[in-house]
């Protein structure tokens, strides 16, 4: 094939020099934070985000710059030790491959060949379609949240007691055996000292927030003296807290200060 591929093999980006500036101790690029907080639903989601952020149309798919940014974010996610699905790396390889094909001079005889981006563009469009379908679904009025069912009762004294299902003790044992058989697949969740310190940090953040009227600027929670690993632990603790809906993350405008606040209790 071409020597372009040899010069820039796809994974060189991941272990080679950084494409964007890596976060220096306390510094995490604001929009990197923003997008990581959004937690991507996969490589297509991340690509869509990058395209939208540059106010581009999917059909324009600027493969060179998008590839660079994609790889940079994948690297950042690795750096922050966010669980990275293998699909992200497959996509990085695919992008590099498309890029190398784009760089080839267009030969006369290749005229008939499809644009190397076509398949990816098609997938992006399809994913975007269902992504917004999911958003629409979330907007539909639904039980528990928007709709309350109206019920009336019957006078208990006159209604035969509803039959209740019968079960045997043996069934209970079998059910437990089923759970345990399935539980085997979860065995890779190992106890690590790291997750312990993350949970400890989570408590510290909650404590700090409650002592400070329930909110504070994002940067306040990092301690310079803890260095890089301290920053990572704090950051992951924040992500966990947001995921568990214990705190909120607010940013009024794209480049303004980010605030964290305690989730208001009912």
């Amino acid at each position, binding site marked *: 094939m071409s020597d372009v591929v040899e010069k820039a093999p796809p994974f060189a980006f991941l272990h080679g020099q950084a494409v964007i500036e890596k976060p220096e101790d306390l510094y995490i690029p604001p929009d990197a934070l923003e997008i990581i907080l959004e937690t991507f639903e996969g490589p297509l989601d991340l690509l869509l985000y990058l395209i939208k952020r540059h106010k581009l149309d999917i059909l324009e798919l600027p493969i060179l710059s998008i590839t660079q940014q994609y790889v940079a974010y994948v690297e950042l996610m690795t750096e922050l030790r966010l669980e990275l699905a293998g699909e992200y790396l497959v996509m990085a390889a695919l992008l590099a491959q498309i890029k190398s094909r784009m760089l080839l001079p267009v030969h006369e005889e290749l005229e008939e060949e499809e644009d190397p981006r076509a398949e990816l563009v098609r997938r992006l469009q399809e994913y975007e379609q269902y992504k917004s379908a999911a958003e629409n679904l979330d907007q539909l009025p639904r039980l528990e949240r928007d709709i309350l069912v109206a019920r*009336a009762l019957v006078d208990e004294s006159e209604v035969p007691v509803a039959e209740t299902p019968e079960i045997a003790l043996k069934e209970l044992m079998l059910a437990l055996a089923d759970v345990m058989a399935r539980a085997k697949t979860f065995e890779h969740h190992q106890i690590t000292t790291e997750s312990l310190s993350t949970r400890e940090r989570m408590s510290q953040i909650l404590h700090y927030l409650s002592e400070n009227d329930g909110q504070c600027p994002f940067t306040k929670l990092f301690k310079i003296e803890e260095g890089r690993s301290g920053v990572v632990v704090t950051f992951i603790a924040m992500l966990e807290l947001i995921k568990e809906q214990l705190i909120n993350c607010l940013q009024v405008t794209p480049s303004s200060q980010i605030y964290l606040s305690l989730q208001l209790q009912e």
Partner: protein
Amino acid sequence: MCVMRRVSDEQLIELIEAAIFVSETPLSKKRLRETVLKEVAASGMRVDEAIRSISEHYQTRGVQLVEVGSGYRFQACKRLTPWLSNLWQEKAPKYSRATLETLALIAYRQPITRGEIEQVRGVSVSSNIMKSLQEREWIKVVGFKEVPGKPALYATTNQFLDYFSLSGLNMLPELPEQHEVKIEQMLSDPSVRESSE
């Protein structure tokens, strides 16, 4: 053989109204006939007419008759929900994007295999999501695809429609349109290509 009872229109309305109110799940006309109206002489037309009359009566009340996937139920008028929700302390569950996207794909593309869902989303779908959706009874296996491995085909259920207050799948919001422009045309336009850096 049981003797069918004749009832007046008013009695029929009373009975159907009460039945819908006391039923634990939405009540279909079929179930209505098989249970409450088992011994009542009432044509399908009279039942329809009674339901229409009930629906009309509640137009001006605090609760309304609606038809959802598995039948009829009464529910509070939507505009009252903000006040009424004070009766509950728990917050309604939120669903993750992964769950919603999986559910959307099953709703719009059913019957669909897990592999096909993963193909569109570009990531693997966790077993937890599929299991939770099945335990909520929003989706179920409706068959197996005739390809190697015979993967299960999933579809949505009536309970899914009930939860989202839809009377049928055709009431789902329309799927957003894909760009009409021919991808090939756009892409083969040399001006779109970037210059190498």
